[in-house]
């Protein structure tokens, strides 16, 4: 494991950037920075870690961002005067929250962005928005870092040379005029009504949408079933039996936040309820949803289709004959079908995006036969119109090759990177006379364009977007574009000959025309919509449809199956330059900074493959090299590769990280296919993960409680209260915690699916640095909350347990007594505070922490030099320097904010008023925080339940964070015994 092999963060090597990097290292530049930030200049510097940070965060861009961000960093030349009149609403030190929304694969997620003196520092879900209900996910949490990414494209380029917006508009407008019918637009899928209308207004232009993770299968399945485009919405909160066929519905899609919450609500045992839903999951490799399953069946992706047929046949769907299934699968299907039948009208069968359209059509028929339609499954008009998948990209390339395209506008879609390998985008783009690229990054596609226009981040943009249920929400900018980026709407306007209109003007003009209201009425309505984050009465109406079975069910193949999956963190790879996403440990594997060829233990043994062996995967004549990683619970004879890595021009963070699995993808095998060949090169690769050991080692009683609902009911019936714990006596009187606020947390293991939203939210809230692969490999990750994963049972189909662990805030904190300088101390409200300024860094506290939740700044991890990254930081949380220990402190800054509010209003802090960052982000609401002294608070009530336990109770640390026992609801027919 040489150190070189770890060094994956190469720079992208453009001389233009390199020269800036050199420039940023000059003495004048240093002097200037030090003058501006004398405190940091005085602190002892650390050249080695600084160098790695240059790689990671790209401080090379510092100089130009200094020019770019004018308001907070660079003082204007003119005389400055303090506020004579304070701007309305702005109170220094108090954040403002604005409703906005972010498009995820074209669908809107309503957000509230936190703004500190004009800087958006964090985004969270908008409670009024149907797709978020106040929660978010790791992808959304990390989006704020993308905005401040110093590697973002900062200027308009014409053939690689800087140009002005005026030049660009003139050139684009005239090219568009000249192109006439030869104008084509390709963008990521968008549901934006204003954009759709604007493009529709371009005569002669044709619009394509391409998303590498497109759910075309879903759309095509609906077309097969209903002969029309349909949007399907599931109501998991109403379902008591769910069968997921290769569907990870709780993670990684525009609907997953909502579905996570709805599903979790059927698994929660609050208010003495003793019933919970049952989840069946059939999938090739463990997904987040799979870890929640009561019955998980590892099955090849290609074998899902016959399974769906068998389910349909068993339910009596007309025109379906049952195929022969293996005995174990048949039994599983029979039991699931019996449960489904019993829960007709209260069940859901859902197929994953990667399953072929015919399976989706079957599933529609199955849901119809279960009378779920209209109850747990509803249909509306499609939110995103038109194909968004590979068919669309192929059609465009065909057009280009036919010479029909004179001008191509590419908006955000990074087709040069994420197109399947059998579509040669680079070659095609050469044939187009004018290629205009609009995007946040000067990426692989931008390099092929004549014009590159630096795009505006959604936090810098005016816009609109529709949610999965059709609800329109508005995007409003939280900050003026840092680098004068442009939006898609503006570029479309230029194509239409309107080069001067701003996005705001275009947007309001559109909505005025739609709503047909007069200025005054419109303004009023506009304000309400902006404030609420949603536009009233835009939710799509449900439509009643009859499903029919259609399409050809592909035969399940033989041989080694290659399965493509979006990376759980990076998804399609567009956010590859986001350090938070690169470094968040992937669910199940806990790997960071890499993608792998995942393989089952049996198959690995059969192929003679060990972890970290570099494999050469050859598929349809194309091959890539990928490190092997053995995953328990993956079905045999499959190899799962994740998309989103191997970027060649992502920026300093994301370039040359991992391998590019798009290079194996074909237009016919976008998600899986048979017959991949594997050759073990015998070369070793180093993977970094945050967890090395996944076995509970028989420590279940102390660490992770799990039981079944049936057993719980039986215990209740017999009046058993679990075994009473031994009282531990102490010679010393205990501290009296009965007064005042006593903060505590409860984490419901039944709801947690390990999605990482909390991890990234915590990172954003608490200014947690990114440390890079090498440091993680050395065991120095910095995230304050982690999700521990355990495998139990046999390796072919283990139970997978996820457990979020952050500082437990022990009442008898072992860390406190060993600190020689009193840098970690208890407060009277039960929080174990870390006093960063006082910390000398003996690390003794970490050694004595049984939960190992403390994190240490072994180097100067925080980039104190890149101005744009400084803007992102939460001003309410100290930025830690080298040599200091840090850890979770229950978002003390948020408690204090509420305390100030409460004091001012002369009242107590209300239950639910203080929401920690992890709690706020959690899509399944697994985390509850509050005052445990208030017996009516939700957290106090949860702590009264029998299913509550604390981790390592036997050590008598008295943690303030407790957990709710993981419950499963297995069908006795399958589990065979009542555990």
């Amino acid at each position: 494991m040489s150190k070189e092999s770890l060094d994956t963060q190469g720079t992208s090597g453009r001389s233009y950037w390199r020269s800036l990097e050199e420039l940023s290292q000059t003495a004048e530049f240093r002097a200037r920075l030090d003058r501006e930030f004398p405190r940091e200049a005085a602190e002892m510097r650390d050249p080695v870690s600084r160098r790695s940070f240059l790689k990671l965060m790209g401080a090379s861009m510092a100089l130009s961002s200094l020019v770019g961000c004018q308001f907070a960093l660079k003082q204007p030349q003119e005389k400055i005067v303090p506020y004579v009149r304070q701007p309305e609403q702005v109170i220094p030190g108090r954040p403002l929250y604005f409703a906005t929304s972010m498009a995820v694969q074209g669908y809107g997620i309503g957000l509230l962005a936190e703004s500190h003196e004009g800087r958006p520092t964090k985004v969270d879900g908008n409670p009024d928005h149907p797709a978020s209900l106040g929660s978010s996910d790791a992808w959304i949490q990390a989006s704020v870092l993308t905005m401040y990414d110093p590697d973002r494209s900062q200027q308009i380029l014409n053939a690689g040379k800087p140009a002005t917006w005026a030049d660009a508009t003139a050139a684009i407008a005239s090219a568009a005029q000249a192109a006439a019918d030869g104008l084509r637009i390709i963008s990521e899928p968008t549901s934006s009504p204003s954009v759709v209308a604007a493009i529709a207004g371009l005569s002669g232009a044709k619009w394509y949408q391409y998303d590498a993770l497109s759910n075309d299968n879903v759309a095509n399945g609906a077309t097969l079933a209903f002969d029309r485009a349909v949007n399907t919405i599931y109501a998991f909160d109403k379902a008591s039996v769910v069968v997921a066929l290769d569907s990870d519905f709780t993670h990684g899609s525009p609907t997953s936040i909502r579905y996570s919450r709805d599903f979790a609500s059927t698994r929660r045992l609050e208010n003495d309820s003793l019933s919970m839903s049952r989840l069946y999951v059939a999938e090739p490799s463990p997904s987040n949803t799979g870890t929640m399953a009561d019955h998980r069946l590892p099955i090849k992706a290609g074998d899902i289709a016959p399974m769906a047929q068998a389910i349909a046949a068993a339910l009596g769907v007309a025109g379906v004959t049952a195929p022969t299934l293996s005995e174990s699968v048949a039994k599983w299907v029979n039991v699931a079908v019996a449960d489904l039948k019993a829960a007709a009208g209260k069940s859901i069968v859902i197929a994953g995006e990667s399953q072929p359209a015919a399976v989706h059509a079957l599933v529609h028929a199955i849901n119809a036969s279960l009378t779920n339609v209209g109850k747990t499954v509803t249909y509306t008009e499609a939110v995103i119109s038109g194909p968004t998948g590979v068919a669309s990209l192929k059609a465009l390339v065909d057009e280009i090759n036919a010479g029909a395209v004179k001008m191509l506008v590419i908006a955000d879609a990074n087709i040069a990177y994420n197109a399947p390998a059998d579509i040669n985008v680079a070659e095609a783009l050469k044939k187009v006379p004018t290629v205009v690229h609009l995007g946040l990054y000067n990426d692989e596609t931008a390099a092929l364009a004549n014009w590159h226009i630096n795009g505006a981040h959604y936090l810098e943009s005016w816009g609109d977007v529709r949610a999965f249920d059709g609800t329109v929400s508005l995007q409003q900018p939280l900050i003026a574009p840092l680098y004068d980026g442009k939006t898609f709407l503006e570029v479309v306007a230029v194509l239409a000959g309107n080069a001067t209109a701003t996005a705001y003007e275009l947007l309001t003009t559109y909505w005025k025309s739609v709503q047909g209201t007069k200025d005054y009425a419109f303004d009023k309505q506009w304000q309400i919509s902006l404030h609420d984050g949603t536009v009233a009465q835009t939710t799509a109406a449900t439509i009643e449809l009859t499903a029919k079975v259609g399409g050809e069910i592909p035969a399940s193949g033989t041989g080694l199956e290659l399965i493509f999956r979006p990376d759980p963190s990076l998804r399609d790879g567009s956010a590859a330059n986001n350090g938070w996403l690169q470094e968040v440990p992937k669910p199940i594997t806990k790997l960071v900074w890499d993608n792998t060829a995942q393989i089952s233990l049996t198959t690995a043994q059969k192929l003679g493959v060990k972890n970290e062996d570099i494999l050469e995967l050859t598929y349809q004549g194309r091959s890539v090299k990928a490190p092997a990683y053995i995953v328990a619970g993956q079905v045999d004879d499959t190899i799962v590769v994740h998309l989103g890595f191997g970027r060649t021009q992502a920026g300093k963070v994301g370039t040359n990280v991992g391998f590019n699995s798009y290079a194996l993808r074909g237009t016919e095998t976008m998600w899986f296919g048979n017959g991949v060949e594997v050759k073990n090169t015998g070369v070793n690769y180093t993977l970094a993960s945050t967890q090395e050991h996944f076995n509970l080692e028989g420590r279940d009683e102390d660490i992770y409680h799990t039981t079944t609902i049936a057993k719980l009911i039986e215990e209740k019936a017999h009046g058993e209260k679990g075994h009473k714990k031994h009282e531990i006596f102490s010679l010393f009187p205990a501290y009296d915690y009965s007064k005042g606020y006593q903060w505590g947390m409860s984490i419901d293991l039944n709801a947690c699916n390990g999605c990482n939203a909390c991890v990234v939210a915590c990172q954003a809230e608490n200014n947690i640095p990114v440390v890079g692969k090498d440091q993680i490999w050395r065991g120095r990750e910095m995230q304050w909350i982690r999700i521990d994963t355990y495998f139990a049972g046999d390796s072919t189909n283990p139970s997978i347990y996820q457990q979020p662990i952050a500082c437990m805030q022990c009442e008898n904190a072992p860390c406190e007594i060993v600190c020689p300088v009193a840098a970690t101390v208890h407060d009277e409200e039960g929080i174990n505070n870390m006093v960063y300024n006082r910390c000398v860094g003996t690390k003794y506290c970490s050694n004595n922490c049984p939960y190992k939740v403390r994190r240490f700044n072994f180097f100067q991890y925080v980039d104190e030099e890149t101005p744009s990254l400084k803007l992102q930081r939460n001003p309410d949380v100290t930025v830690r320097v080298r040599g200091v220990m840090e850890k979770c402190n229950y978002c003390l800054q948020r408690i204090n904010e509420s305390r100030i509010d409460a004091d001012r209003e002369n009242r107590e802090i209300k239950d639910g008023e203080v929401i920690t960052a992890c709690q706020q982000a959690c899509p399944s609401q697994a985390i509850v925080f509050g005052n445990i002294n208030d017996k009516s608070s939700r957290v106090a009530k949860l702590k009264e339940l029998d299913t509550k336990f604390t981790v390592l109770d036997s050590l008598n640390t008295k943690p303030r964070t407790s957990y709710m026992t993981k419950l499963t609801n297995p069908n006795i027919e399958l589990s065979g015994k009542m555990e």
Partner: protein
Amino acid sequence: MQTSQPLKPPVVESYDELLGPGETYSSVTARISDIVLYPLLKTPWGWIGGFIAAGLLLMLYLYSLATLFTVGIGIWGINIPIAWGFDIINFVWWIGIGHAGTLISAVLLLFRQDWRTSINRAAEAMTIFAVACAGVYPLIHTGRPWLDYWFLPYPSTLGMWPQFRSPLEWDVFAISTYATVSVLFWFIGLIPDLATLRDRAQHPIPKIFYGLLSLGWRGAAKHWQRYEKASLILAGLSTPLVLSVHSIISFDFAVAQLPGWHVTVFPPYFVAGAVYCGFAMVIVLMIPIRRWFGLHSLITMRHFDVMSKVMLASGLIVTYGYFGEIFYSWYSGSIYEYFLIVNRIAGPWAWSYWSLIIFNVLIPQVLWFKRYRTNLPVLFFVSMCINIGMWFERWVIIVLSLTRDFLPTSWGVYTPTFYDWATYIGSFGLFFILFFLFIRLLPMVAIFEVRDLVHKTAHKAHEKEDHGHAGA
């Protein structure tokens, strides 16, 4: 180097006596002081070579420390969960080595063990240098070493005191007291000999140098009386320190709740281990010095025999500790303690545990036989083994316990880096630089005490009364 010795005696090994045959007051004085007073320009090449080698090691040490201060402690292999590695291992190891000196000079003085006289000076010097080496580690192992003064209870404008419940805070006092008392004791013991050197020196520079250091010692009866009193007091002060210092250092671990650290037997077990390792180090240093400087008649086989016996005894206490740990892990009923021992014995790092057992338990069993106790090559080998074994003991306690604690998800691996090794190996540079300076500048055997021994030996031999002290 022997050639430079004017009074090189014939090598006659003495197995029963503490002094070689034919040693007189003047021969003893000359033999010891001539090593020091030899002209500067005629310093033996062996010494110069050794000094340069030690200097190079010191440069490595300074380089690694400079990197540490400028870059951060991330240059070491430590991580979370293994937040202490070589830094604390070496700290405990060096402190342990120091113990022999104090034991020899203080405890044996109180117990009136005559055999201590010819080795106590060098052993004490070793103590002080080892404590110096040890003392560096707690200071540099912190993340922000420039703030180490916060460990001290000084009247800060912040109104902050150290946290006195922390064993690390106890260390501050234990080590500083130990270092202070050791230096004082050593220096006071040196005064009569410094006066001897002053009187024997011919060149003005050493005359002035030793003259200043000897603080006006004239060898008056009053001086001797005060000297005896002071050394008795300091011996009385040092004796509890022998026990307390390593007990307190063991509290760094015993007070924590980590399996493998939280062991009540640690204080006596650590003290015994320190004595064990300290005597081994004394033997390792004495064997070559005795040979190079021709001190056969001052440091006799009898000395090695006695030191080996102490080593054997303390080794058995340590062995008892090892078996005790295994027993408690089973008897405690704690799955964590039990797992820890199984992991030590049969885990991925079992080789380090078995090295410890082989080096510390099995090999030293040869010391039961006088034949081996007086066979210097064997003794040297065994002592080296013990030094290595005791280092492994700290490795096993500190690192192995941290690698696998309560939550399996946070288990980790520790891999020492170049800088870990450099700060360890480099610390020998500091030690040997000081030691070489010591043997060149100060009498490495207590002249007046050996002369006392000459007197006593003569007395015993002739069964004659001869009162009074030997004058300077």
